[in-house]
């Protein structure tokens, strides 16, 4: 792999709503932007055999995930007229109801922003080596699987 700066997308714990608000605010100086599209993934409290998911504990093969994310980013920028893209994914424990994935695309026009955001989310779910342990209140768990 050649030397390049891989952007870290991972941070410990839930993504706070205030962080998302600040990210939006930071774009006010980029006046060529006409549209933002945002996807927020929230930990869902699925019920499995009368037990409810209390939290998900995320782990990743981080080095591989960051290289893959770099490739996804390059492909998305090639395909869509984007001004910028930001991706944040949680690691560690995230409680039900909290945000674990934040994808934010900006473009002069809405179609590019919306489609790029959707495609990025789909590719993250399919291609990034990330795992989620669904933790129940009684301390048992099962491994999450993306559908």
């Amino acid at each position, binding site marked *: 792999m050649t030397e390049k700066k891989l952007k870290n997308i991972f941070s410990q714990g839930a993504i706070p709503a205030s962080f998302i608000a600040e990210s939006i605010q930071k774009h006010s100086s980029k006046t060529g932007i006409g549209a933002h599209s945002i996807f927020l993934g929230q930990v869902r409290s699925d019920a499995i055999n009368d037990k409810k998911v209390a939290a998900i504990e995320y782990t990743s*093969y981080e080095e591989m995930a960051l290289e893959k994310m770099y490739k996804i980013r390059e492909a998305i920028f090639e395909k869509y007229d984007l001004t910028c893209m930001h991706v944040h994914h949680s690691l560690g424990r995230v409680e039900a109801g909290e945000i674990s994935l934040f994808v934010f695309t900006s473009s002069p026009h809405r179609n590019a922003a919306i489609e790029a955001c959707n495609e990025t989310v789909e590719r993250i779910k399919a291609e990034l*080596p*990330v*795992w989620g342990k669904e933790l129940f209140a009684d301390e048992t768990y099962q491994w999450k*699987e*993306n559908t």
Partner: protein
Amino acid sequence: MQVNVIAFGQITDITGRSTITVNDVTDTNELIQKLHSLYPALANTKYVIAVDKQIINENMLLENNNTVALLPPYAGG
């Protein structure tokens, strides 16, 4: 010659650890056979392998100090 195996997700439940050092294997098929004899439950588990972060779909010759990752189905987001 040794390769470094790293396990992720549900596979760590089977191996009980996240890193395993395996000696004297020449290719990935041989490595997988060895792992399946060490951890029989692996044979019934869905996973792909990556050699030095590249997913491989066919047998591949291994070199000293390769890192082989065992990757169960992804669940990001």
